[in-house]
């Protein structure tokens, strides 16, 4: 069963009294352990699709089902609970809380869910991203790459089935970007999480299992990647 199933989704916004269609009949499924990249120009609907997939927003038409639960049928409290248990987010600008240490940032999703004894799990995730020795540092004491690794640890600390990453390497140098992409690959492979990643980088997309190209709110291309796909020109 797909971890997230997006079916015939339409998303419209109102901009200056005229409706703007951000997504237009998009359907997509991501299986457990599958790593899907969303590529396309700015404004093509990548982030909108991520928000819908993460139950942060509702489609104007169509359905979004996360791990068997139809988001349209859930109220705000149930959606929050769903996110807490099953969804993790990684952002372009890391979005670590500046007032918390690395470990405290990682503990946050567990604490928001009301869980106790969270330090050991946070340290374990920091170990996974090789940031355990930086556990007590504050964000401003870390580099961009280190911050994003902490953010990844935070996004997986509660063992989500779905990880949504919005331009996770958009703000990193190439070396750090490489490290982050490898980490995400491991999350999919070792933890079995379904990952949906929006990116501008076709280079980064090569590491994913499936590439979905969006254009003007529609899926223009869907391609399985792998050893053969790497040879396919994507640009």
């Amino acid at each position, binding site marked *: 069963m797909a971890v997230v199933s997006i079916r015939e989704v339409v998303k419209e916004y109102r901009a200056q009294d005229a409706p703007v269609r951000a997504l237009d009949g998009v359907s997509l499924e991501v299986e457990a352990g599958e790593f899907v990249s969303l590529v396309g120009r700015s404004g093509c609907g990548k*982030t909108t699709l991520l928000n819908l997939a993460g139950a942060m927003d509702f489609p104007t038409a169509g359905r979004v089902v996360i791990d068997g639960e139809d988001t349209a049928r859930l109220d*705000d409290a149930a959606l929050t609970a769903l*996110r807490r248990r099953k969804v993790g987010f990684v952002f372009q600008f890391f*979005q670590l809380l500046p*007032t918390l240490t690395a470990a405290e940032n990682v503990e*946050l999703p567990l604490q928001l869910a009301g869980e106790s004894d969270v330090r050991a799990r946070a340290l374990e995730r920091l170990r996974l991203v090789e940031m355990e020795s930086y556990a007590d540092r504050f964000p401003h004491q870390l580099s961009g790459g280190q911050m994003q690794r902490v953010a990844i640890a935070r996004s997986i600390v509660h063992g989500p089935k779905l990880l949504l990453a919005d331009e996770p390497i958009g703000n990193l140098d190439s070396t750090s970007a490489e490290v982050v992409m490898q980490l995400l690959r491991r999350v999919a492979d070792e933890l079995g999480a379904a990952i949906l990643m929006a990116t501008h980088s076709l280079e980064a997309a090569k590491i994913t299992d499936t590439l979905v190209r969006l254009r003007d709110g529609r899926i223009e291309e869907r391609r399985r990647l792998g050893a053969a796909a790497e040879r396919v020109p994507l640009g």
Partner: protein
Amino acid sequence: MSRWRVFYRLLGRPLLHDPVRTGLTVLAVALGVAVVVAIDLAGEASAGSFRSSMETLTGQADLEVTAVGGFDERLLGDLVRLPHNLAFSPRVEGFARVMETGATVPVFGLDLVGDATLERAQAGGAESTFDFEGMDLETAVWAGEAVAAEPGRTLRLQINDRVLEYRVAGVLRGEGFQGVSVRDVVILDIAAAQRALGKLGRLDRVQVYEPEDESADWPAVLRAALPEGAEVVPIGSAAEENRKMLGAFRWNLRVLSYLSLIVGAFLIYNTIAVSVVRRRPEIGVLRALGATRGDVRLAFLAEAAVLGAAGTVVGLALGRILANGAVELMSLTVQTLYVTSAPGRIVITPARLLTAAVAGVGVALLSAWLPAKEAAAVAPTEAMARGRRDFEAGRGVGRRLAWGGLLALLAALASLAPPVGSIPVFGYLAAVLLLAASALAARWFVRTASGLGTRLAFRLFGIEGFLGSRSVAAALGRTAVLVGALSTATAMLVSIGVMVGSFRETVLVWMDRQLRADLFLRPAGDPATDRYATMDAALADAIEALPEVAAVDRFRAYPIRYDGMPANLGAGDARLHGERAGIRFLEGGDARQILSCLPTGPYVVVSEPFARKHDVWTGDHIRLPLGGREVDLENLGVFYDYTSERGAVIIDRKVLMQYLPDPAVSSLAVYLEPGADAEAVRDEIVARNPGRELYIATNGRLRTEAIAIFDRTFAITWALEAVAVTVAVLGMAGALLALVIDRKREIAVLRFLGASAGQIRKLILTESGLLGLLSITLGTALGTALSLVLIYVINKQSFGWTIQFHWPVGLLLAALTGVYLASVAAGLYPARLAARLNPIEAAHEE
């Protein structure tokens, strides 16, 4: 000009786009200005343009002749016979209670037949007339329009303890007589007034009109013709003396009214500081595009000036409205503690408008100076900086703490200095230094306390408490200012609470010792208006003859003038007082010994306020004009007294009778035989004295009423406090709103990470609660220090009262709980806003 347009776009527009916050800041300044304006206007109306009711019919006379207890009317004959063209207007004065309305009004006895100056006044165009043709002058009265609406009616007046019937011969209207309002007065012929007031053959004062065609040193001429003890003073002296007496009271209120403005200053500082933090990149761009540091500084000062000006305009209007209520409250205090007064009109003068403008705009500019300087220091390179930096929060915490310590030390030194005149200038300075010290220490306190309290907050409030505590410490630049503002308001609340509570407790203890009699009698009516009403001495004798009565202490009070200030002269049975009442002496030795000495010669004791005001201590001599001579009196001691701020000189009744032989009494303290029923004796006195209007209170009732008056007196103080706290809470709401707006992304991330809307709401409310708690803690510490300054320095130097320190625990707990709840409530709207934020929009804003 175009440069200003750029500044308007960058700085002015955001103010308009953030109307709630801008509105809250303007409202905070407006409230501060309003309170200053209201107290200024009301102070002037109820005290500044103060005119004692006794002064009402002063008219255009130049001088007046007075004496303690009045003087023999034959003296007028001596004056009239002087070989000069002087004109004289004799009068007796007192008060009457209008039985129909219960109002107490001044009564004047004028020589309607022989006083030529009255015609002079009528010739001056006044409407009032005294047409007494065919009238029985014994029963005719001319009454102000507020007392009697039409002539011919019967008017029942209680004068002293008797009710008398009069016929209204004429109604005094409008500006009335001799250019002074006569709405609330009653005028009788002098002979009728002398009889009614129990002043047969005596006059209270003679007003003197100097001749226009002759010049001389008229006071000297008059003095030469008068016996010792009679005083010649310029007209209006009493009003001037009263104004002087009220000086300290008005100063204290004025200083208290500045409190809201100080709290408002914190908030302007915060608003501008937030503005600087938010717009650092824009400032960088401006600097890169050629704006000078001066331009930037000026732009931010202009922003503050706009907020200050808007606050001033609103504050002026609000102040005018608040002044009405303030006049009422202030008049009550003036009336209760000082002197009978008739509040004047509230007048807004250009000088007051200027005061308001200086208060509003000046304070805004001063408080914006530091953030504006910070803005001017932004380097053009910061145009490229991403994100926002807090307002230099972490910098110089230790240095500020050290400065705070130094100022606290200076405050301690200032509190040791004596007053300047009767104004405790150094006391105020000590209070201001303490406030500044606390403001400087606020950053250290907030950082340390929120750091230490993080774990506790987590345990108590979960992750929301933890995050709230961390963010309070992280946004130190803003939160410390907020804590500074609310703690200042709280500190004043605590200090005034402790001061008033201590004063109240001191008065209660004092009453316990002092008020030992079982019954107290005085003429019925408003004692705050008619302070020197008298009762027939025979009444005292009759009461003393009752079998249930063990003793009666006869007390007589006279108004006196000492050292250019009004005071009271009181005479009682010193020996009885020593045996029965628990009078306590500040100095002079054993109370019983002092009081037993008092009847043996020209001795007095003085109250503490009198001693402090006039620097008269044990062994000192004072000279009082009594019964036509200057009497030298030795002070045997200084006693604690809380009845009047003007101070009192107490003499034995028998000794006073040698100089002023009028046996009438002002009040009686009746001591009953053991086992006698006070209520029954009270009823018996009433039954045996039909026709006498007496106020008879049992011991318990008198105490209850006294403490009720005490509480009413401080109503205005509490009103000012409430405004200061409101300003602080408004500011807090505005600042929390700013924090929410600036932390939109952080809040959105929390939502992405699984925080529910309820958790976000709880987070913001926890922050506001935490800020409230920190403010209350700091405010209570500062308030305690301030209360010491208030009790032992400002109050003592202003009013001369010794107050024993006392914690009014219940009152403080209630007040602090109120502040805490208000601070949490200040977070309600920001919390609602935060919970409703669209996380998608907020997270992607960059």
